[in-house]
């Protein structure tokens, strides 16, 4: 009864509508402007922008190893972006991908370090699934709190990120720290649990493929399933969806389960494909980057793949900038932050101008 009388907010609907109008063009303008400003900053640092651009592109795509690095950097950001977008498309603002990713990493490292190594290659699927389940359960908490108690999901998901981050810190300083170690990290995962490398001579692991496959699955789910159409209807216009008998609560719970599972899987992939251990601070704000990727990508799976690839390239490209031209790799943060600022400015301007 209280549930059926809840007034559902219509944010997602209006946001999606505003974003969809000429969105691709706006994004291209935002990225072009960011690149221009980035190059101007480099010029101000006394570096030839064209040389810097060449080094960055070379560092991102210039060699097999560069491409591998770009895709490795892309993977966690794509996973958290997909997690964010499936929840937001249902009208649930999940800002908690970072925490769900942390819990996913925990979920993966537990079986991967503790189960008998004799399980061999079985350890990989077990650890991945365990990570997804941990992430899903962590994501379910804010959904349940919202539906039962009306708790604001933006605050709850945001705050639970810190619980997740500090929980990992606690684990690697305590229960999961191998005896006699002074490093804040767990034991190494079993070889059978490691994601296989797929491009010889690079760090590229199977997780990148998993991420792209998840993106494709999400696209099918959103556009070719009844679940997807109901999820989108509920996100765009909850009151209309409710009048046509759609179970809003169930849709939100389901979308948050999927969202948390994807972010958790992202955390598992990072542990099993890159670090091979649970390490304090293993996530370079992947959850927050993912939110940016999801929004810049227009909350579309394909858009998320493209923008995540850009973020990956910026990360590997700026590492090259640092090693070749001694430019701080913090440039990566500037280059990935600028498009968001430009996009927000353009969209904000359009919103204000459009209001009559």
């Amino acid at each position, binding site marked *: 009864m209280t549930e059926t009388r809840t007034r559902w907010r219509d944010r997602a609907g209006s946001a999606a509508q505003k974003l969809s109008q000429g969105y691709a063009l706006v994004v291209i303008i935002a990225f072009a402007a960011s690149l221009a400003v980035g190059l101007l900053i480099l010029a101000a640092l006394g570096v030839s922008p064209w040389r810097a651009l060449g080094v960055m592109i070379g560092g991102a795509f210039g060699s097999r190893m560069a491409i591998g690095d770009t895709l490795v950097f892309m993977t966690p950001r794509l996973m958290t972006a997909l997690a964010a977008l499936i929840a937001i498309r249902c009208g649930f603002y999940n800002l908690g991908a970072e925490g769900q990713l942390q819990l996913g990493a925990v979920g993966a490292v537990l079986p991967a370090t503790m189960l008998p190594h004799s399980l061999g290659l079985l350890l990989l699927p077990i650890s991945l699934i365990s990570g997804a389940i941990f992430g899903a359960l962590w994501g379910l908490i804010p959904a349940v709190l919202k539906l039962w108690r009306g708790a604001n999901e933006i605050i709850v998901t945001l705050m639970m990120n810190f619980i997740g981050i500090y929980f990992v810190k606690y684990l690697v300083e305590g229960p999961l720290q191998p005896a006699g170690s002074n490093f804040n990290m767990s034991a190494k995962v079993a070889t059978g649990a490691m994601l296989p490398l797929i491009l010889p001579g690079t760090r590229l692991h199977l997780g990148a493929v998993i991420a792209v496959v998840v993106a494709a699955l999400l696209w099918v789910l959103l556009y070719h399933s009844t679940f997807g159409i109901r999820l*989108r209807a509920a996100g765009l*216009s909850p009151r*209309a969806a409710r*009048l046509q008998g759609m179970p809003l609560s169930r849709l939100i719970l389901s979308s948050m389960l999927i969202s948390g599972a994807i972010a958790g899987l992202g955390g598992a992939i990072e542990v099993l494909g890159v670090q091979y251990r649970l390490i304090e601070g293993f996530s370079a704000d992947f959850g927050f980057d993912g939110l940016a990727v999801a929004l810049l990508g227009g909350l579309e799976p394909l858009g998320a793949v493209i923008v995540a690839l850009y973020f990956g390239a910026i990360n590997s490209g700026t590492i090259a900038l640092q090693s070749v031209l001694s430019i701080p790799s913090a440039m990566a943060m500037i280059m990935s932050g600028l498009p968001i600022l430009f996009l927000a400015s353009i969209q904000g301007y359009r919103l204000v101008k459009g209001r*009559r």
Partner: protein
Amino acid sequence: MPTDPFLTLTGITKAFVPGHPVLDNVTVTVRRGEIHAILGENGAGKSTLLNILFGMYQPDMGGILLEGREVIHRSPADAIANRIGMVHQHFKLVPTFTVAENLRLAAPPAIRPSLARNADIARLADSFGLAIDPKAIVSTLPLYLQQRVEILKALINRAELILFDEPTTILNPAEIDAFYKVLQQIAAEGRAVVVVTHHLNEVTEHAQHASVIRRGQLISSGPVAGRAREDFVRDMVGHEVDLSAALDGTGEAPGPVRLALHNVSVAATPSSSGLRDTSLTLRAGEVVGIAGVEGNGQRELFELVAGTILPDSGRVEAGRTHADGRPRAGLVPEDRHQEGLVLDLPIAINLLLNKIDEAPYARAGRLNHAAITARAEEMRAASDVRSRNVHVTPRILSGGNQQKIVLARAMNEDADIIAVYQPTRGLDVAASEEILRRLRDAANGGRAVLFISSNLDEIMRISDRIIIVYAGRAVGELDGRASRAEIGALMTGGAAH
């Protein structure tokens, strides 16, 4: 009665999109001592004209002559300084403030000291014949009194011209009469009054001067005396429309009961009385009109039929129900944009939103786009929805076309009941007539139609029975031929204000 020209809008042209003027060379003169009605269909440009006059938009061409001198209104502040007041459709009051606080807030600084005591305000209000309690919190007042505060705001600002945008949609018949008495008095004191409306009765009964705008053009402007309703409709629509076209039933006795509410109660909310111990039945083949002033339980009634709320006590019995117990009913909700449609999903999905998980539109959770498109195209053709195809979103369509989608979906529901709530709100005359015709046909074809509306004319035309709700109760049931006076008396709970 003095009738000197007070203000002239000369050659006003305004285009939000270049090449598509919303107003095209409109010239209107407003005189002191007159109630001047501006008539037009939705989107004709009448609100834009008002907003230009009040300084919210700038005209592309043309200007404002105030007592022969050209003025420019860059903002509402300029208009107020030129002694123009506006009562918006949605009131601009601070709901948590008292009447006195709202009036002091709106008063020019020079006048504020003279409003310091509540007694000053009460005396001032009385002097205008607008008695009101200065200590009352605005949000607790009925809408007709809130409107009074808005009028007082304009008068305190020494307005010589007061603009009203659709002022009577929130009033019951008795309140409408009282409202126009106030306007007559304001005009009689030598002020000018402009009322934007699409209620023809009000124009022919209360206004002295009427200007009709159609698609941005001024079609006619002159005294009301000697003109009939039909003349105004022709000016508004551009062709003859028979507003008295029969919407009659088959004449046969209604069939079995399709929906019954037994002593249902729903808790009140700040904006509604809820329902109290209300019973009603709806039979196959009849249209039952629900008349009442907004907020007297209509929304709860609709939501009970939709199954989105459950009664706190009492029972809702429907002939057929969904698996989850909701009554099976075709629904045309009040808010077309938020409840009727998902504006950013394609027309095809909107048409089949209620059946999207049923075969042949979905199999094993997978959408069958071909089946959806085929059926949606059929429905679009049958309902004459004017759109390029069914893959575009309804956002770009006119209100009439949007409502046709909502109605088509309601008719397509496997239900004996159609429940509609303000089905013609915001639609032009032709589109309204078409919606009413289809609802009547649905009833004559054996469906049971629950017709909830604040438009009494429509209810009187289409209904076989009229149930009047007041303060959450069904206070009376009248035959479909009942008079406006009979219905109006019940709408105010049997007592006049």
